């Protein structure tokens, strides 16, 4: 079997919630050994974000499991000297550390870059605070939706008739920051391979989010353009929109990019009287055309409508929701959903690696770690801690396999 590109790379993962864990999830899928650090009193909040019944709810979160696959779990209380000591021993045997604490937290823990570098001179540190480690906004606290607002994307999103900006329905800043962080970490690995030097990377999630709308900055700086809310319409083509289909909350997305596509659409929806409309006319009569398309689509099954339009080379897709996406024939044919066994949960459909390396063919390999699952393996096996010390560490709360003070939220 062909090796995965990051085999042999070890990453200490201090990150929590979604942005950092998504980065290390991607890196783990590519073969890196990711060691996720939590503490009995400071666990990844995603474990307990929603109420879950059972004796160990923190080990049975489907949400946590989705984004923490391909990782090992180690508990270390970094506020205690022995916890920090063990972390630095681990750093000495690792290639990179990643964290998404608030900007000041790592230094306050006594684990800033210079400290890490004393443990491993060529260490790579990726810090991914919401607003970065420097600058006037560095102390602001940010999650994905905040980042989206503060980076300009929300200002560009809206229906256009109510003046209201909208956020994405997910915490979009997190996976954007996480994907960029994964790339930045690999960039530093490439640089280190060539120069022998480590790196201290300061990734501001607000900035990686702003990178997702670079053309809007060009427009604003050159012409002073303010955001235009277009709903689902295209700035040039017409018509384009999201139209209702038969059934509850069933929708069809459709774009017409040319006169030829327009003629084909008229034929499909039985609007032959409109076939001669030019692009200028279609733009001017967009409301009317939307109503005409919707009158047709509302009587159609979404998948059948998609097939009928695609048969005429018209870009169209049934909108998939958070349930139907698990039953999409195309994704199933591509073996995208995986049912990885988990020791505390029934298997559920989880996404396989989106980075399809055709030859290496990465597939899900391990479920998310139970809390402290790999304490013995890492502490004794990798760091040489005597077996007999584990009980002392547990008694002192440096390590543990259960949360202290667990609640919901």
């Amino acid at each position, binding site marked *: 079997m062909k090796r995965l590109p990051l085999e042999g790379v070890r990453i200490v993962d201090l990150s929590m919630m979604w942005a950092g864990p998504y980065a290390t999830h991607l890196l783990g899928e590519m073969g890196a050994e990711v060691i996720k650090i939590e503490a009995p009193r400071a666990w990844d909040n995603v474990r307990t974000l929603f109420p879950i019944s059972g004796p160990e709810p923190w080990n049975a979160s489907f949400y946590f499991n989705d984004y923490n696959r391909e990782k090992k779990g180690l508990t270390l209380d970094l506020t205690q000297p022995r916890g920090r000591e063990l972390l630095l021993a681990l750093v000495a045997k690792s290639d990179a550390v990643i964290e998404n604490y608030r900007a000041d937290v790592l230094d306050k823990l006594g684990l800033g870059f210079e400290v890490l570098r004393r443990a491993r001179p060529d260490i790579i540190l990726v810090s991914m605070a919401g607003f970065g480690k420097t*600058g006037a906004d560095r102390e602001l606290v940010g999650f994905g939706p905040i980042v989206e607002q503060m980076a300009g994307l929300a200002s560009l999103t809206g229906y256009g008739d109510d003046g209201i900006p909208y956020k*994405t329905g997910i915490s979009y800043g997190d996976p954007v920051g996480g994907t960029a962080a994964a790339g*930045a970490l690999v960039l530093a690995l490439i640089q280190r391979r*060539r120069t022998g030097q480590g790196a201290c990377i300061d990734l501001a999630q607000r900035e990686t989010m702003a990178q997702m709308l670079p053309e*809007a900055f060009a427009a604003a700086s050159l012409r002073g353009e303010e955001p235009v809310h277009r709903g689902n319409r295209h700035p040039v083509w017409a018509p384009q929109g999201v139209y209702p289909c038969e059934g509850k909350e069933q929708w069809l997305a459709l774009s017409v990019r040319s006169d030829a596509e327009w003629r084909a659409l008229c034929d499909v929806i039985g609007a032959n009287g409109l076939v001669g409309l030019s692009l200028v006319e279609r733009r001017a009569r967009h409301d009317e055309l939307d109503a005409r398309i919707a009158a047709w689509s509302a009587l159609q099954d979404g998948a059948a409508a998609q097939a009928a339009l*695609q048969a005429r080379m018209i870009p169209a*897709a049934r909108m*998939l929701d958070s349930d*139907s996406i698990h039953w999409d024939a*195309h994704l199933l044919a591509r073996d995208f959903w995986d049912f990885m066994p988990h020791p505390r949960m029934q298997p559920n459909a989880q996404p396989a690696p989106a980075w399809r390396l055709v030859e290496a063919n990465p597939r899900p390999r391990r479920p998310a770690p139970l809390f402290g699952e790999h304490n013995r393996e890492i502490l004794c096996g990798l760091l040489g801690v005597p077996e007999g010390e584990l009980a002392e560490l547990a008694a002192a709360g440096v390590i543990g396999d259960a949360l202290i003070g667990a609640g919901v939220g």
Partner: protein
Amino acid sequence: MTNVPEAGDAGRVLPLDGMRVLEIGGGVPAAFATRWLTGYGADVVRSEGPADALDRDEEIALLTGKRRIGVPDAQLRALALAADLVVEDGKPGALAARGLDPLALRAQKPALVITSLTAFGQTGPHASCEATNLVAHAAGGILSLTGVRRRPPLANGANQALKLLGLHGFAASLTAYFGALVSGEGDWIDLSAQECAAGLLEFHGPRSAVDGLPAPRLGNRTTAIWGIYRCLDGFAGVCSLQRQARALLEGIGDPELLAPRFLDPMERMKDDKELGRRVESFFAGKTKAELLALGLRQQVPFGAVLTPRELLESDSLSERGFFDEVATPDGVARVPGRPVLGLEWKSGALAAPAADTDAVLCDWLGGAA
């Protein structure tokens, strides 16, 4: 493999100095995937696609620093074999039809990484489907969660399905390139916009996988303490976890909000609408700046809906040197530059289409050109 580091501008060594990247354009995905590579030192050469593949603002934002060529397919194939990475976003099979079959290129040059960016991937019943940003967005699931329930789902701005595909293209390509440096073996990466998004449905995805219920669109208000509200000078938001809820409610300054029914996370859900009205009323009397200051004071995530123009004036972004300047015939544009601090970055100029054909053929193919 062209992995010999060479000094970049002013003797600085950039992370990707010496790396050769061929972008076979191409629309937004391929252009976005390679944009940061050029800033970090790679020699990115763009073979132009259709004239309308990018609009003028996208060209300024995504092509800066790249060399631009126009060559026949035979020369393009030779350039692909001289590259370390090829990034393309044509339809499945389009590259092979031009004599650049990825598997054949890989067989001839095992260290080569080829990244193919499409809406639906290289295989499967929808692989050959026509797609736009909106269509790919609908297939990826995020569209279903954005907007309000009484209205159609809403695409977010600036072609996010295409950008997200490009962003994954950047990170996946570099990862495979690193693997090639280590082992001498590249790979062919098949990235689809649908799959890049389908795994990003936050808790909605796994929850629906468990309970079989589609998540509704919640507009700007997931809960009372996780949403966007109108304020005195625009819109602002708050995203509070339970651990920040007390600080948030204290910051609002209404003693009634410190009752257990608002502090307890399970009780609070029962009175979420009432709490939402109170938070809404509080925001309505504050400015963005006042709310951001409150967030800082209470250590609660508050945000303001800012426009690109406002961000161009941001002291914080200016202090961090976030924007690059690009000379254009219409003036100097300011666009996002380096994505992170801590790695050397070079800004670049915007070349005209095909302006660099002769130089690239000479540099990459030498006598073979």
